[in-house]
């Protein structure tokens, strides 16, 4: 039976699905427990009294009632971070180098997909596309975002990184930062040339903004509805499919084996007949494509994008990759989910627990605080190997 699963390649599909479930449930459960314990400790505090007077609920009930929604939001954004983080971690895996331009690759994917949808909207096909049409156009937008971002990633590798291979470590890093700024301005230029504005808003179409009601929690005052937006379901489903696909490519195909061997020992891989340049380019292609798809999904979820849209998600995803253990694909997934959850929890509860002194705008601090704590205690990340083991 085990043999059968292995030979069918089914294992490489079920395994990442299992890991995702464990990570989501694990991180979600852990943070929920921490939150409830915090709430219990805060009984009778100012925050508790404030909630009682304004909303007629105590802090423990408030915390628990909000948990489902917070978890759903955390998972959604967590999967987006995971998809971006994989781009950082894959490139690091083969080149031991942080591709700081990845956040702009993400932005280019977002713009390409959104521009396509805007054009479709202008020629009127989006509005008249029926029930399933919007899904077709969204799929096309994702494909276009992936192609654009993957293509740009390959181009950047070829022109800005490959000539610097063998140079001191800092040199390609500087090149990446330069590419990152250059791309931001190129996007701004192109977008403002066409319409005079450099931000874009994804057209409203299909039923993506609808909410699916999951359940209702009865309270003394107004009942709390727990629902999930259709677009959140799409973001999660698309991200899960891509992450499984990537895992399959890396672990169960010939090119995947080539990627893994180049990551472990480039020279030896070359003398085994592997075209190292091709493998590195391919790594940029799929890492970039994942980032581009994440860009389109991000635009779908948050609607407005500008040339700097990649910066924060990029930083968060980079943090996720480091927290999980840079170079490790499963680590990027774990890191992304943890970061998404943290952000969602911080965004939802920070204001309440501090009686508005620290609002949800401080949620980003939490992400970077976690980065610092993790790298102080585990420099190689949660699932990373000890540096000394790296040959």
């Amino acid at each position, binding site marked *: 039976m085990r043999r059968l699963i292995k030979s069918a390649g089914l294992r490489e599909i079920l395994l990442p699905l299992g890991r995702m479930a464990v990570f989501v449930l694990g991180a979600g459960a852990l943070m929920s427990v921490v939150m409830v314990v915090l709430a219990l400790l805060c009984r009778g505090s100012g925050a508790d009294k404030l909630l009682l007077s304004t909303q007629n609920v105590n802090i423990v009930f408030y915390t628990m009632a909000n948990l489902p929604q917070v978890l759903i939001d955390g998972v959604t954004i967590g999967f987006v971070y995971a998809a971006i983080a994989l781009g950082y971690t894959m490139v690091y895996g083969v080149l031991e180098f942080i591709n700081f331009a990845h956040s702009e690759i993400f932005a280019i994917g977002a713009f390409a997909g959104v521009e396509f949808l805007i054009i479709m909207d202008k020629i009127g096909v989006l509005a008249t596309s029926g029930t399933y049409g919007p899904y077709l156009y969204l799929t096309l937008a994702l494909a276009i975002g992936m192609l654009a971002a993957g293509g740009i990633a390959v181009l950047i590798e070829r022109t800005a990184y490959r000539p610097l291979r063998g140079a001191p470590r800092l040199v390609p890093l500087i090149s990446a930062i330069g590419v990152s700024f250059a791309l931001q301005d190129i996007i701004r230029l192109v977008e403002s040339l066409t319409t005079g504005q450099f931000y874009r808003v994804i057209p409203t179409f299909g039923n993506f903004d609808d909410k699916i009601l999951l359940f209702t929690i009865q309270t003394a005052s107004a009942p709390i509805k727990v629902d999930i937006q259709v677009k959140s379901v799409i973001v999660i489903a698309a991200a899960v499919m891509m992450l499984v696909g990537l895992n399959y490519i890396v672990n169960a195909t010939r090119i995947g084996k080539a990627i893994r061997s180049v990551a472990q*020992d480039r020279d030896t891989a070359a*003398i085994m007949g592997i075209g190292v340049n091709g493998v590195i380019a391919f790594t940029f292609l799929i890492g970039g494509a994942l980032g581009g798809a994440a860009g389109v999904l991000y635009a779908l979820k948050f609607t407005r994008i500008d040339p700097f849209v990649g910066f924060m998600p990029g930083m968060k995803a980079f943090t996720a990759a480091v927290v999980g253990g840079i170079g490790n694909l499963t680590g990027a997934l774990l890191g992304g989910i943890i970061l998404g959850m943290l952000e969602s929890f911080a965004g939802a509860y920070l204001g309440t627990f501090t009686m508005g002194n620290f609002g949800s705008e401080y949620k980003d601090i939490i992400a970077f605080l976690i980065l610092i704590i993790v790298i102080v205690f585990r420099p190689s990340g949660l699932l990373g190997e000890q540096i000394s083991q790296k040959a």
Partner: protein
Amino acid sequence: MSLLELEDIHSYYGNIHALKGVSLKVEEGEIVSLIGANGAGKTTTLRSISGLLHPRKGKVIFRGKDVTKLAPNLIHKEGLGLVPEGRGIFPRLTVLENLEMGAFLVKDKAEIARGIEQAFTLFPRLRERAEQKGGTLSGGEQQMLATARGLMSTPSILLMDEPSMGLAPVLVDQIFDVIKELNAKGTTILLVEQNALMALSIAHRAYVLQTGTIVLSGAASNVAKDENVRKAYLGI
């Protein structure tokens, strides 16, 4: 025509002139040893042949073809196998996967299976370790794996870089027995060694490399008799 021929190779690391005009030949069916002290340029010579380092001057002719400027994967395709210095085992791939990597360009599944079976016959220890990660093997086992992996593509020449390095004497004997056996079955071998005594005992011909130049060459038995070689490398 020789199987492999180096004509006046000059190789550099940045400004360091590591090979200063190396010429050598390997004929089909031979074991040729390249000996020399630490830092003489033995590894650099093998890197220059296999495409990992492109010489700035000179030519590498393999099977009648100029491969000097080819990428390593293309030279490998021409039929060249390398067992690198320090073995170059993929630490996070299993023994079996490491072997499969050696046959990366082989399309025929049956042929790969035959190669693996042959590797396990040559080194029964590897069969016991088949599912173990390469990085967890002992030094001797890693050398066996690197050698077996180098053979997976049935190369017409196998370059071996210090296979005896860091191994217990029993294992060194075992590796050298395998080299002889492989050669008897028809594999041409270019053997780089600091362990000159052993290398000269199994080779047909030998070259002595000193700070980037060949200082002596000839039949292995003659090289072994040379006054300077005996003093410098054989400790006699």
